């Protein structure tokens, strides 16, 4: 069937780009209407994405790609173009939907901010870059989008740049992800070097790595796959480069929801899924992806247990869930990963926006200052609860089905991976229960006056929550073990019913429920009246270890930052003493020469004459004197 809307997919990133340009140009004069421009642009993108997606559903539409030759260097032609596959169509919907909802939400959240139109400009630029990244038909364009979303992330984390923490977090995010980006760049360069015809587009990649095995040697393939994965590790906050993501919570909460939960951090997963043929060609790379993912999931889930900042809990939860996606990718089921990405985008955006409502009401992010909000903020509490249940994997919410798909894939791969997944699921439910109970149950623990005044957020902030909550509840049914419609649609292959995964399902559900129950025991029922803090616990060192996020930041500080700073200082000394010294010496010498010259060139003709005579005599002595 011919596709109509897919031909116009390239318009999707252009709407937000236009909004960005308009907002940047007319920053001053658009204090009020700026937000609406961005919202309309994102709505246009959403509409187009939905049209593309619905057009493709059920029709078995051909992949559509279009583009043009961008640069011709010698015999090599770099093309720029877009490609619409079922995967990109799905990503388009996720990105533009969350972007639209976050744009809408920010109308309330950022209402009183001085630089609201700047904020919307950044958001629009981000939407444009992310949609461009998704639509790119080759790795080079993807890389451009990749870097652009990195820039937007940097700008938005540091949006409140008057806070030193925000500045530091923005710098940290930018620098840490740079490590991964370098890997991606090297991978692209390697592909450029080894691919026949220097092709970088995904169709050629698919052809080469899928059907023409042996064109590129196994070791090179492994290297490329691992470097690509390094890029994904940086972007998606996988161990050991996850440290930037919790700090990135210094940005405005809608940004956290859009960029650091739903879309940008999922770009790493998307990258691996998009170039999955390369990973499939290298068992080592797949194993690395799986084990890194599993380890990250477990590590982040435990770290989330003892965070007191509501957004940091969610950030570690994001890291953990991204680890799940990586686990699925490494276990050989990229459709499960994309499915989890799909559901996670909704419930994590929901949780962040809900947390945003709480922060908006209480002006604090500290869980120890919260409590009892459930009565005052009913909509938020209910939707947040739906998100918690979805993330915890309670059937039949979305998170359950996607987590189950991931766990089923892990189960087939290796029992160890499965075990890590199950334990993580339990911890996930535990920390989410803790978060929900501390925030919404019990009595206010913080400023009583402030808590008394806390009221539900305006409709513009709760409407996105309702939409997301509905999706969090229902989105899982697109793929169940009894009918994996999404997986079939994505991969284009019929996937048999997986009846044997019923035990996995049961284990997953049990783990989630167990976690929730433990959480209720620890923080709801069993908590002392004074709140959860301040009591003695077994294994204080373990608690402390978790509380300090495994001392990874400190370790990096000593391992990388301090030596680099030392190197920097040494280099600065070198620069000052040797390079600068040489410069100063040269400058001084020239200056001295100039001063001498200006003394000599006084305009006194007789001095000049004398100099000429002296020179003549010296020349004569030098030339004639040699003969004697």
């Amino acid at each position, binding site marked *: 069937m011919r596709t109509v809307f897919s031909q116009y997919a390239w318009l999707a990133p252009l709407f937000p780009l236009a909004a960005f340009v308009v907002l940047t140009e007319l920053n001053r004069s658009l204090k009020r209407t700026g937000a609406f421009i961005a919202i309309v642009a994102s709505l246009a993108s959403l509409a187009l994405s939905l049209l593309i997606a619905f057009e493709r559903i059920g029709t078995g539409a051909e992949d559509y790609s279009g583009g043009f030759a961008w640069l011709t260097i010698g015999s090599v032609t770099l093309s720029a173009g877009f490609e619409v596959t079922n995967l990109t169509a799905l990503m388009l919907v996720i990105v533009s939907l969350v972007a639209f909802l976050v744009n809408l939400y920010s109308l309330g959240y950022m209402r009183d901010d001085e630089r609201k139109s700047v904020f919307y400009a950044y958001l629009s630029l981000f939407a444009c870059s992310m949609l461009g990244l998704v639509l790119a038909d080759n790795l080079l364009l993807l890389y451009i989008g990749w870097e652009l979303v990195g820039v937007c992330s940097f700008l938005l984390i540091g949006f409140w740049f008057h806070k030193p923490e925000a500045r530091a977090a923005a710098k940290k995010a930018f620098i840490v992800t740079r490590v991964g980006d370098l890997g991606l760049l090297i991978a692209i360069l390697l592909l450029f070097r080894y691919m026949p015809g220097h092709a970088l587009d995904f169709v050629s990649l698919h052809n080469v790595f899928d059907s023409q095995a042996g064109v590129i040697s196994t070791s090179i393939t492994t290297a490329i796959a691992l470097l690509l994965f390094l890029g994904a590790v940086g972007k998606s906050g996988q161990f050991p480069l996850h440290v930037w993501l919790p700090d990135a919570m210094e940005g405005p909460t809608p940004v956290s929801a859009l960029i650091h939960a739903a879309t940008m951090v999922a770009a790493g997963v998307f990258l691996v899924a998009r170039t999955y043929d390369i990973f499939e060609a290298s068992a080592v790379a797949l194993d690395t992806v799986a084990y890194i993912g599993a380890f990250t999931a477990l590590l982040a889930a435990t770290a989330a247990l003892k965070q007191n900042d509501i957004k940091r809990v969610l950030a570690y939860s994001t890291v953990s869930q991204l680890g799940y996606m990586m686990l699925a990718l490494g276990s050989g089921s990229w459709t499960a990963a994309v499915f989890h990405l799909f559901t996670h985008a909704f419930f994590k955006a929901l949780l962040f926006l809900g947390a945003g409502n709480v922060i908006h009401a209480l002006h604090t992010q500290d869980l120890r200052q919260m409590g009892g909000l459930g009565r005052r903020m009913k909509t938020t509490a209910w939707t947040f609860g739906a998100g918690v249940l979805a993330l915890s994997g309670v059937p039949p919410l979305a998170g359950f089905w996607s987590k189950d798909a991931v766990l089923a894939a892990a189960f087939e791969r290796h029992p160890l991976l499965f075990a890590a997944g199950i334990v993580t699921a339990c911890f996930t439910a535990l920390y989410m229960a803790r978060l929900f109970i501390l925030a919404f149950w019990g009595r206010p623990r913080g400023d009583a006056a402030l808590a008394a005044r806390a009221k539900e957020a305006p409709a513009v902030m709760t409407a996105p929550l309702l939409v997301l909550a509905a999706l969090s509840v229902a989105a899982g049914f697109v793929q169940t073990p009894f009918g994996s419609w999404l997986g079939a649609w994505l991969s284009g292959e019929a996937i048999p019913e997986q009846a044997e995964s019923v035990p996995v399902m049961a284990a997953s559900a049990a783990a989630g429920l167990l976690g929730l129950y433990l959480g209720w025991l620890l923080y709801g029922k069993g908590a002392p009246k004074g709140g959860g803090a301040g009591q003695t616990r077994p294994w204080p060192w373990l608690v402390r270890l978790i509380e300090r996020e495994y001392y990874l930041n400190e370790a990096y500080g000593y391992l990388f930052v301090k030596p680099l700073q030392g190197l920097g200082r040494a280099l600065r000394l070198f620069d000052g003493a040797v390079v600068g010294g040489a410069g100063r010496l040269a400058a001084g010498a020239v200056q001295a020469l100039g001063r001498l010259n*200006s003394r000599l*060139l*006084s*305009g*006194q*003709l*007789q001095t000049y*004459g*004398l100099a000429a*005579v002296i020179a003549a005599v010296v020349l004569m002595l030098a030339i004639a004197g040699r003969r004697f």
Partner: protein
Amino acid sequence: MSMLASYLTLAAVLFCIGLYGVLTKRNAVVVLLCIELMLGAVNLNLIAFAKYGVVPSLAGQIFSLFAITVAAAEAAVGIAVLIVLYRSRATVNVDEYDRLGR
């Protein structure tokens, strides 16, 4: 031989005296005169060579005639320039003609 050497030595003495005058005298007129003296010393050389050179020839004398002519022209132009300079700077001191250095 000895006569030629004597003439040349005399010319060298006069040349060096003229050079010293050119380099040290403040008054521009004196400087111009010293230049004439140096030219005169050169003419003496030319004429001495015309008589005592390896091939005695009138070419030396004719050269010195040309040199004298050019010296006259130079003196005329020099004095004219000097007068113009004097009008604008109200001085004939060479060390005050230091526009070149600014």
